[in-house]
């Protein structure tokens, strides 16, 4: 039985669902191009996601604090001053938003490239562990070194681009829809990238990097490129999420979060972005509806911390999927472009060749 009666509560609920879904789509699809297409198990996803969040927080501090004359950027008074200043300056909030998302992509991408350097020649599982260690090192550094985002207690009062918009529920719905549109654009761009000749190289490197290097493709360069792209997308997601939650807490960026994203990829389909999106939808619904606050809304009370139960189920899901359906719900499909291109080219040059192609393809 639902206890939601007023429409604004419902709108906030829906917009939070859309928001988390768009973040999870971006993160899981970027994990999929690394893990599914190229065979790089990037367990340091939180590192790049966190970097996006840090970029957002730092740019907001850099722009607002000199104007409002804040002394300590991390205390509650400054947060209130920033928010009230942002409400009076809509163009400023929007231009900061655009600048930040672009910078977050670039900085996280560069970080991904740098992180790939010491790790790329390692065996796959040790590559994963090394990236996980980078992520943890970053988190521990940021939560201890206060001048970055305020240490353990984090920073709040990061005004979103639509903070001046009234009514509030509608603003959050619009913002989450924008994020969803960005997620769809990311998805479409990646699909066209993965169906290009370069996209086929990724799978070649994953399946056998010796063969790929025989054909003149440098596996190390390909892996570095994919890590750069994946990290850029994760940074974008981090910046977008920061403007939604309007706060950054270093302890949100822990390894189990990465495992959760990985579970989406494994469940939906390794090497298939459509499947990954399906996995992201299913697991983000599971995640949203297994929050204690959500269960209370539905009238259910439990005597223990539900997040333990959630992560336990994620662990079980990873094992079961690997044991019984290791290709995921929607298995990997062959790359589309070459067949289309070959068929079209042959179709134009004559029917005799066309028959031959058809025979070969059957």
């Amino acid at each position, binding site marked *: 039985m639902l206890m939601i009666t007023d429409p604004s509560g419902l709108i906030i609920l829906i917009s939070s669902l859309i928001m988390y879904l768009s973040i999870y789509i971006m993160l899981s699809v970027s994990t999929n191009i690394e893990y599914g297409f190229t065979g790089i198990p990037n367990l340091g996803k939180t590192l790049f996601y966190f970097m996006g969040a840090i970029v957002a927080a730092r740019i907001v501090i850099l722009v607002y604090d000199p104007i409002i004359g804040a002394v300590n950027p991390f205390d509650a008074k400054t947060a209130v001053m920033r928010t009230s200043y942002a409400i009076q300056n809509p163009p400023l909030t929007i231009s900061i938003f655009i600048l930040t998302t672009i910078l977050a992509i670039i900085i996280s991408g560069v970080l991904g490239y740098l992180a790939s350097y010491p790790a790329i020649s390692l065996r796959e599982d040790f590559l*994963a*562990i090394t990236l*996980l*260690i980078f992520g*943890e090192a970053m988190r*521990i550094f940021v939560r201890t070194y206060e001048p970055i985002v305020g240490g353990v207690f984090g920073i709040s009062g990061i005004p979103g681009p639509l903070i001046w918009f009234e009514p509030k529920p509608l603003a959050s719905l619009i913002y989450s829809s924008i994020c969803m549109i960005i997620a769809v654009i990311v998805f479409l761009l990646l699909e066209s990238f993965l169906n290009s000749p370069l996209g086929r190289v990724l799978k070649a490197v994953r399946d056998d990097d010796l063969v790929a290097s025989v054909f003149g493709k440098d596996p190390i360069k390909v892996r570095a490129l994919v890590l750069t792209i994946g990290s850029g997308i994760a940074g974008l997601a981090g910046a977008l999420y920061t403007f939604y939650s309007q706060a950054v807490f270093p302890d949100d960026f822990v390894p189990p979060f990465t*495992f959760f994203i990985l579970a989406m990829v494994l469940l939906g389909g390794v090497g298939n972005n459509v499947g990954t999106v399906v996995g992201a939808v299913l697991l983000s619904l599971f995640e949203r509806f297994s929050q204690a606050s959500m269960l209370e809304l539905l009238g259910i009370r439990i005597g223990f911390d539900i997040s333990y139960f*959630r992560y336990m189920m994620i662990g079980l899901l990873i094992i079961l999927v*690997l044991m019984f359906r290791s290709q995921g719900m929607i298995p990997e499909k062959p790359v589309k472009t070459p067949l289309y291109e070959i068929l079209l080219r042959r179709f134009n040059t004559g029917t005799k060749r066309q028959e031959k192609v058809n025979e070969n393809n059957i």
Partner: protein
Amino acid sequence: MLIIEEALRQVVSSLLVSVFYSTAAVGLTLSFNITKIANFAHAEYITIGAYVGAILTLIGLDPILALIAAAGVASIVAVSTDEVFYKPLYKRGARPLQLFVASIGVGLFLRYLMSLYADIGDLLFLSSRFSQQPLFYLGHGAVTNLHLLSIALFVLFIGFLYSLISKTKIGKGMRAIASNPELALVSGIPVWKIRRIAWLIAGFAAGLAGVLWSYYTSINPETGWRMLLWVFSASIIGGFTSIWQTVLGGFIIGYSENMVMWFLNSLFNIDPAYKPLIPYGVIVITLLVRKPPALLR
């Protein structure tokens, strides 16, 4: 000399954690060599050992008996996770990467199962009833009965493992499987039996480290997970092949994090919360400079 006395305190306390890291890391190295799984669920064997040991001492069992029982439970858990999860996957031809991801799943499952149990039973922070008594002092460092117990057990365990691997037929089989599993199977080595023994020992090592940890300080369901990256660092420094190098790796990690942090803290007043960064740095340096061949593609 205050500085020397303080340094001795660090030396004495680092010795204990180094022993814990080394013990757990030896188990990890062993199971990695036999199965080629970089086992993330190793952390959970540590936690299970710690919890079982602490609970057994709390209901009044003798610490030594509790220790053996808890390590036994951890090794049974290790064998059963292999029988239920890893072995079927391996037989279906799963690649090392998939086995690694499966071990993450197993780890998550076990860790949060224990968290649920601890949350419901109100055991989220637990201290065992082992009382540490100082035997004598080195500077400011108190050498306790726990030091004696841990080091004795550690030496016994390493000695046992060394003689098992170098002297017995089982050890010969282990070395054969480590270098080439298919060839070992073809030449009639009881691969599955040896695999079971390896998991038993790996679980026992992790459980031992866990129980000793629970005697040392208070525990929570994340104890093993917090230790895991340190244990991995020790094994990575050891190149994931040799037991002696892994032991050395454990001592390098244990001493570097405490001594270097103490040094930086007293000289440059650096916050001890940065401590985890030291082993991480050591790992990166190892990977860049030493390039252990077992860890490369």
